[in-house]
C-alpha cells in the first residue's frame, strides 16, 4: 500500500541539505513513510516527485463528508477487509427514502422519524443520519421536499437524473453539502460540472461495476475527488459480491477507479420490510458507505443500529462505561449493592442480568480503564484498597442503610483487603458469571 522509506528516498533530491530539519534525506524519507513528516517540509522536491508521492500517500479509499454540523456524515476512509486487522472507521450512514409522490403527511412523518428514532446507550446516541429525497418527475414537489429538508439538521441525498432539477435542488441545498445522486453514462458531464461548481459530493450509478469504474474515472479526470459508487446491482447476492469486489479492488489492487465509498439500496432489493433489514445488515458487515432504506420503524431500525454499533466498535480499544452508581429496577435504601468494573460489556451484561432478576439493586461501576474484572484484578486496578476507596467516595453509603456489598466471584481474592478498607462492612462474594446473578439475587435477604 504505502511506499517504503527507501522508495520515497529515490524520489527526494538526496542532497542532505537539512532544510527539512532532518539530518539526511534518508531520515526524512523514513519519517515520511511513518507518517511523521509532511512532504511540504522539503523545498527542493521536484513537481513530478511531489505528484507521485502525494498520489502514493493518498488513502486507498477516499474519505468524504455529506451534510454539515452535528449531522456531518463521514464515509469511506477504510483501510482493512476485516475489522480485527485494525478497525472500521466510518460507519455507514442510514438514510430514509422520501419521494415526490408521498403526500405532505407521509413526508412530514418521515422527516420526524429521524428525531424520534434516537436511542441512548451508555454515553452513545444511536441514530440514523440521512434523508434520501427522490425525484420521480414531479419537480415542484421534489424541490418542496428539498426546502423542507433544509429546515432539518440531517444530511441530505438528492436523487435525480435530470440536470435542471438537480441544479434547482442544489441552489436550495448548496449550503448543506448534499450528496448528488447520480451521475450516469448519459448525464455525467453536466453532473460533474455541477458537482464542481457547488462543491458537492457526487454518486455515480453504473450498469455494473465496470461501468461504474469507467464513470468514476471520467469524473476523476474532470478533477472531482469526492465520489460515491453505486454499481446499479439490485440482486442481493450480486450486490454483496460488488461490495466485496470494490473493497478488495481498492485495498488489494490499489484500483483508484474504485477507491471510493459505496451507496446501497436495500429499499430496491426486496418488498419485505423485515427482509430489507437483513439485506441492510449484510451491507453493514460488508462494506457499504450509505444504506438507503424504504422506511424506518423502531422495530426495524433499532436492531440495525445495534449491529452497526457492534461492527464499527474499535476492537483496539476497550469500551468503557462512566464511573458511578447505576440504579437498576428502582432500588431503595435496603436494596443490595453490587460493585463491578467499567468494561462496557461487563456493565451491559451485569446490568442486563440484574434487570432480568427484577430485584432492585444499586450497581456501582468503578473505573478500571475498561478492563474486565479478572484482568483489572490481575493488573492491580480492582483490588481491596482501590475498591474500598471507590466505595467511600462514590456516594453509595448515603443511599443505603445497610453495610453489605457484593463483589464479583472472579475477584473473591480481594475480600480480606476490602473488609479491612471498609470497617463494619460485610463483603459478599457474588457468582462468577453474570448469568447466575438472578438466582443469586433472589436469595438476598433484607
Amino acid at each position, binding site marked *: 500500500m504505502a511506499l517504503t522509506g527507501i522508495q520515497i528516498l529515490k524520489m527526494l533530491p538526496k542532497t542532505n541539505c537539512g532544510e527539512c530539519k532532518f539530518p539526511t534525506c534518508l531520515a526524512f524519507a523514513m519519517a515520511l513513510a511513518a507518517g511523521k513528516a509532511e512532504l511540504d517540509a522539503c523545498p527542493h522536491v521536484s513537481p513530478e516527485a511531489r505528484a507521485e508521492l502525494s498520489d502514493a500517500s493518498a488513502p486507498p479509499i477516499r474519505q468524504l463528508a455529506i451534510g454539515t454540523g452535528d449531522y456531518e456524515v463521514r464515509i469511506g476512509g477504510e483501510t482493512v477487509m*476485516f*475489522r*480485527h486487522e485494525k478497525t472500521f472507521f466510518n460507519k455507514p450512514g442510514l438514510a430514509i427514502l422520501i419521494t415526490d409522490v408521498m403526500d405532505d403527511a407521509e413526508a412530514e412523518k418521515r422527516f420526524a422519524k429521524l428525531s*424520534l*428514532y*434516537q*436511542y441512548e*446507550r451508555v454515553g452513545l446516541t444511536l441514530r440514523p443520519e440521512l434523508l434520501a429525497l427522490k425525484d420521480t418527475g414531479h419537480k415542484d414537489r421534489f424541490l418542496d421536499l428539498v426546502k423542507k429538508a433544509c429546515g432539518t439538521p440531517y444530511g441530505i441525498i438528492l436523487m435525480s437524473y435530470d440536470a435542471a432539477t438537480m441544479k434547482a435542488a442544489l441552489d436550495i441545498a448548496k449550503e448543506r453539502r448534499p450528496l448528488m445522486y447520480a451521475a450516469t453514462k448519459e448525464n455525467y458531464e453536466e453532473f460533474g460540472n455541477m458537482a464542481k461548481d457547488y462543491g458537492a459530493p457526487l454518486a455515480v450509478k453504473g450498469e455494473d*461495476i*465496470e461501468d461504474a*469504474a469507467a464513470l468514476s474515472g471520467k469524473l476523476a479526470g474532470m478533477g472531482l475527488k469526492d465520489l460515491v459508487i453505486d454499481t446499479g446491482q439490485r*440482486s*442481493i*447476492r450480486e450486490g*454483496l*459480491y460488488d461490495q*466485496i*469486489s470494490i473493497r*478488495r*479492488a481498492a485495498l*488489494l*489492487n490499489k484500483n483508484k477507479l474504485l477507491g471510493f465509498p459505496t451507496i446501497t439500496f436495500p429499499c430496491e432489493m426486496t418488498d419485505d420490510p*423485515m*427482509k430489507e*433489514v*437483513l*439485506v441492510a*445488515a*449484510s451491507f453493514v*458487515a*460488508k462494506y457499504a458507505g450509505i444504506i438507503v432504506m424504504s422506511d424506518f*420503524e*423502531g*422495530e*426495524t*431500525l*433499532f*436492531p*440495525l443500529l*445495534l*449491529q452497526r*454499533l*457492534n*461492527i464499527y*466498535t474499535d*476492537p483496539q480499544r476497550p469500551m468503557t462505561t462512566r464511573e458511578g452508581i447505576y440504579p437498576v429496577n428502582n432500588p431503595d435504601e435496603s436494596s443490595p449493592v453490587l460493585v463491578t468494573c467499567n468494561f462496557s*460489556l461487563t456493565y*451491559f*451484561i451485569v446490568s*442486563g442480568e440484574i*434487570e*432480568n432478576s427484577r430485584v432492585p439493586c444499586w450497581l456501582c461501576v468503578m473505573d478500571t480503564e475498561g478492563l474486565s474484572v479478572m484482568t483489572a484484578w490481575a493488573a492491580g486496578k480492582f483490588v481491596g484498597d482501590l475498591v474500598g476507596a471507590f466505595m467511600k467516595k462514590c456516594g453509595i453509603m448515603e443511599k443505603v442503610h445497610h453495610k453489605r456489598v457484593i463483589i464479583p466471584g472472579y475477584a473473591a481474592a480481594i475480600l480480606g483487603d476490602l473488609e479491612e478498607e471498609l470497617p463494619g462492612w460485610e463483603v459478599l462474594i457474588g*457468582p462468577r*458469571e453474570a*448469568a*447466575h446473578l438472578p*438466582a443469586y439475587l433472589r436469595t438476598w435477604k433484607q
Partner: protein
Amino acid sequence: MAFEIPKIRYTGKIEEIVVGAGQKAVRVGGSGCYPFCRFEGEMPNPPKIAFEVWDHRPEDWQEWAIEPYRDVIHDPVAWAKKSIDVYGAEMIALQLKSADPNGMDRPVDEAVKVVQDVVNAIDVPLIVWGTANDDKDADLLRKAAEVCEGKNVAIGPLSEKNYKQIGAMAIGYGQVVMASSPIDVNLAKQLNILLGNLGVPDEKVLMDPTTGGLGYGLEYTYSVIERDRMAALTQEDVKLQRPIVCNLAHEVWKTKEARLKREDDEKMGDEVKRSVLMESVAAMTLAFAGADILIMRHPESARLVKEMIGELMK
C-alpha cells in the same frame, strides 16, 4: 478489459462434518472460501439453522416467544416434533437448561431421559447442549453420548476441564463433539489439538467460539470467527479447520431490548418484530463471519435467515 474480482488465494479448507444419521443427516462445513464468496471457491453447504428446544418449560420467555410453541412447551418431545413438522426444522438443539446447578439442578438421570426421548422421537440431527458447568456436563454429556448411540449427535460444550471424559465417550459412541473456548483463537486451537491427541477424529469436531448477543458482545464473536476462518483458509492452520456452531438464541432473547414492549417505549416499535429481527440480524451477522450452525428460537427469525441464506447461495 473486463473487471475481475480480486481473488483471495486460499490454501486450506474447512472439514466437512456429518451430524445425524440416516436420510436426514446434515452436512456442515466443507468451505474452501470466505462465507458466501462462491465466486472464488467452494461453499458446498449453506449455514444450517438448528431450532432450540428446552428440556423443561422455560420460566422467563417472552409471551411472543412462547406463542409458536404454546401447546408443546411443557413437552420437549412434542416441541421438537412441532419444530420439525410445522416449522421445517432441519436440526434440533436440545438445551439441557434444567440440569444447571445454578438453576433447577435436575439430576443427571432425569435430563438424560429427556435426551433419550427426544433423540428417539425425531429423524433430524440432534445437538445436545449441556449446562456449561464443567463438572455437571462431564457426567451429563457422557451419559447423553451413551443413550444416543448410533444417532451421530453433536454434544457439547466441551471445555479444557472436561474434554477428556466427554471426548472419550463421544469416541466410543461415535458422536460429534462441540469444542468450546472463550472467544479466543489460540484457546480454540489448543482444545482442538487436545481433542486430536485424545483420539477424536477431525471429522467429529465442531467449534463453539462462545456467542455474544446483539449489542452484548456480538462483535467479539464476529471477529474471533473471522480470525478463525482467516487462519484456517489462508494460513494453513489445520487445527482451526472445523465448522463453527453459534448458540445465539438465548443470548439475544434474554436482553432487555428483546423484552421491552412497545407500550414501555414507543420508539422501540413492535416487540415481536423487533426481537425477531434482533435474533435474525445476529444470526446473519454470524453467518457472514463464518458460522456453520446457528441455534435459533423463533420460527419467523429462522424463516427470514433461511430465505436470506437461500438468496446468497443461489
